[in-house]
């Protein structure tokens, strides 16, 4: 009698685990496929150190042409940064989020503005933004309701913060 129960159990376990294995294999295969297509194979550097200048990110900003630095925009951008961003971003150090110093050497102008304008969409859809969120303890960047003009001014200010 006992034996019967054991063998029944064994069959059940096999059935369950084989189901599990199949499913796992399937997902593995699927994710492998996409990874091969989308991501570079080498282990990535920490997101804050990566250079992703060709990535424009996700959001309303598709193309920005940069001219010579406009001091008026810089001034406005600096004020906006102070009020809306400096609670989490310090110029001289890593704080809640990364320092903006040198950010224009690491990220495209479009990526920077999209990150300011649509932080939530960015962390959902942009790999670099997503990795930054993880690197910075899951402290999601706040949407400060900036207009495109304001985001552009902040970008201009960032251009003066080269490393």
């Amino acid at each position, binding site marked *: 009698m006992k034996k019967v129960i054991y063998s029944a159990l064994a069959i059940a376990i096999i059935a369950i685990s084989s189901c599990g294995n199949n499913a796992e294999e399937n997902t593995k295969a699927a994710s492998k496929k996409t990874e091969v297509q989308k991501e570079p194979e080498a282990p990535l550097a920490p997101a804050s150190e990566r250079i992703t200048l060709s990535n424009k990110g996700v959001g309303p900003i598709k193309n920005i042409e940069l001219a010579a630095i406009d001091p008026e925009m810089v001034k406005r951008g600096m004020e906006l940064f*102070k*009020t809306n961003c400096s*609670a989490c971003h310090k110029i001289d150090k890593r704080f809640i989020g990364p320092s903006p110093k040198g950010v224009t050497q690491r990220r495209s102008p479009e990526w920077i503005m999209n990150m300011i304008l649509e932080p939530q969409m960015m962390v959902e859809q942009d790999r670099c933004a997503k990795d930054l969120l993880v690197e910075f303890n899951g*402290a999601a960047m*706040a949407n400060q309701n*900036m207009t495109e003009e304001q985001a552009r001014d902040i970008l201009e200010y960032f251009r003066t913060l080269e490393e």
Partner: protein
Amino acid sequence: MKIKQIKLYAAIATSFLMVNCGNQGDAGTQKSGGALNSGIAEKVYIAPGERDEQYAFISGGYSGNLLVYGLPSGRLFKEIPVFSQFATSGYGYSEETKPMLNTSFGFVPWDDLHHPDISQTKGELDGRWVFVNGNNTPRIARVSLSTFETEEIIEVPNSAGNHSSSFVTENSEYVIAGTRFSVPVPQRDMPIKEYKSNFKGALTFIEVEPEHGHMDIKFQLIMPGFNYDLSHPGRDKSHGWFFFSTYNTEEASSLLEVNASQNDKDFIAAINWKKIEEYVNNGGGTKMPAKYAHNVYDESTHTGTSTMKDEVLTVNPSDVPGAIFLLPTPKSPHGCDVDPSGQYIIGSGKLSADLTIHSFDKMIAAIDAEKFDGEAYGIPVLKFEEVLAGTVKSGGLGPLHTEFDGKGNAYTTFFISSEVVKWKLGTWEVVDRKPTYYSVGHLMIPGGNSRKPHGKYLVALNKITKDRYLPTGPEMEHSAQIYDISGEKMELLLDFPTHGEPHYAAGCDADLIVNNSKKIYRLDENKHPYAITSPDQAKVVREGNEVHIYMSTIRSHFTPDNIEGIKIGDKVYFHITNHEQDFDVPHGFAMIGAKTSEILVMPGQTKTSLWEPSRVGVWPFYCTDFCSALHQEMQGYIRVSPANSDLELSWSLGED
């Protein structure tokens, strides 16, 4: 005779109640059967992520608050504190909002909120403000439909039991506050028994400034010492008039239950306010000393201020002949409602089975032809039959309130017989009746007291709940019911609980409000004297034993979050500016042992909480609103030293 009559009514009332109880089981089955057959459930079902068609602003009665619901779902969206302290947001506890509850009696942190009315332009709802009345300590408040916050409260002097309020004229020229209880005017030490002819009833016309809605008492009409129960403005053709129902024209001061029911007819007082306004504009009226508070909340400083006024302009009815008339109306009329065309004034004699409808045209003709039936304190009484348009013989008992659908129909609640009765304007025939559960008071059709009702639903606001919900001890929240009134017959759709006691309500199409609803306060428009617009302005300042902490919040930290140098005996003011600029991201602030409340600070707003530390130690504070994945980390410490400590103030965040 009178007592016999009351007994008879009581007997009838009891039989109605019994009928109701009997019906109840049936109603339950009918309801579920009906839902299956005719898709009632679908009519009130708002799928996840979908939104309601209409707003309903339902009074919270003795909670002192105004409640915002969706129609047809009956879902509660928000409780707006008006006359009461509200620990949820810190309203009435925060330094900025304490002045809103100031009165000539001092700080009165509660009231009995009754009749919401949405502002109007050209007789149609304009969705800018809701006016509400505090019944107990007479006050009128204006609530913004952009911020959904109380922006202004004005106290009403010479009034007591501010009940025939807070109804607006058709361009929101005035919001009206009539007294239910007459009192000595001015107040004085006198025998109560000398009430008759000595007590007065003040009807107050509060001017509304068109751009910002600021209120100011234009004049008070000092009427005879009746009880002014409810009121409504004339509209369209009767615009310029206001109608007040009265009872206790007997001028009894005791056992009103019997003594105020002696006269077969009381009055609806018709007031030509345009005429009185003209009289006042030409220098008429008498200024009299009166102490009353006027409290205004400024959106840019996020701060309320209270000013004590000391004078009010009064008008004696006999000084403005031809402006005030009394329309005899049977059986202690309660509701006093005007149809969308402005032609009919409906008096609901609450001790009667019938409704009395007066005709505005007939009233004007009777005035012109001087068809008077005597006078009361110099005010002409019009002949009943000369102003009567008709009577609705409803067969119900205890009519209270009437609203309109804009399609020629009126709907009246009957308290004693627990039902809503639909009848036709002009022919006075009853076309439908539906039970309510139980003892319905007010009813509301969105826009139903304007020229243009948004009539599709009717909300019945009941006084008694009994067995409609799972029991919650002796106290049950009052029940409300939603009826579909788009067809010939009313159809009961839904039961839902209200909060406090739902006296009147106001409602409108959602479109009127949705796009104006504010999402954030802009940080660059914040003019609060203790605001900081960037975290580098954070500081702690000592002024004697007062310590002001200029603090900011963003997901998910306070700046600063470590503070030392606070001492026993200090009064510590936390001025907290929320640096978020994103919709629906408030931060809370709670300090251990604070004897006020927590505060909830909206994006871009500054609020102040007072804390008087009583024990030496290191005490935490934290954010009460789950703001991000790192919300649990949003905390800080304050070191409290003995009173004689000479530790200097210091503050920091991180390694700063």
